[in-house]
């Protein structure tokens, strides 16, 4: 019953991981990170539903924390992207090799 929600959450996590490693556009990499975080959120909510009790909803609070972290991550990530684009005129990760030895 709850297992298929967990399968969906692992599928979204794996899809996001594919987007992070197989794409070179920084914008799409950031969107894929969002997909991964959402996959984790579904897993957290599934287990919160599985262990539902009246004593508290720790799983729901955890999802709220993940949402806060995701919002902070996106704002900083997009600011870095704008700064990189201003210097390099590119959003391709293949062009960002100034740290390569």
């Amino acid at each position, binding site marked *: 019953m709850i297992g298929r929600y967990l399968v969906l959450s692992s599928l979204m996590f794996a899809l996001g991981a594919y987007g992070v490693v197989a794409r070179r556009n920084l914008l799409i990499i950031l969107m894929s990170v969002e997909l991964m975080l959402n996959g984790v959120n579904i897993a957290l909510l599934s287990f919160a539903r599985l262990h539902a009790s009246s004593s508290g909803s720790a799983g*729901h609070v955890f999802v709220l924390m993940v949402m806060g972290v995701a919002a902070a991550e996106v704002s900083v990530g997009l600011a870095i992207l704008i700064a990189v684009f201003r210097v390099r005129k590119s959003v391709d990760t293949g062009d960002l090799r100034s740290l390569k030895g």
Partner: protein
Amino acid sequence: MDLVFAVAAAVSVVAGFGVVTQRNPVYSAISMLVCFLSFAVIYLKLGAPFLAALHVLVYTGAILVLFLFVIMLLNLKPEELGEEYSALTKGILAVLCAGLFLGLAIPLWQEASRLAPAAEPPAGFGGIEAVGKSLFVEYALPFELVSVLILVAIFGGVVLAKRKI
């Protein structure tokens, strides 16, 4: 088979594929919108109406608009979108990610079938009152720490994106 779950899951998987395969970031962002809306339906199915509402507000209302804003701000021409990895590299990475999926899904499925099936949740579970009580009583310190994190992120965003301070 639960029809609502089946439709929402199918839509979110198709839209998720759209996010990671589309060449144009605008199409990816629109796929992400569809994906997030079907996630909200899944949150409702999991007995979390408050978080479903927050998800729509935060993700489609703030994060997606921020993505679209940056896409419009950069105004990328088709030749500026960057190169892609070769089909062979993408295939190998897809196989690896399929392995990651199986490695996550199989233990989770076994764990879920080993545990007792979910009982009917208590009244008000996942509502704004239950979550708010947990958040402001039991988890007040982490909540405050998240607000500090967001404050730091605001400063970071301004410092990074501004030309001259």
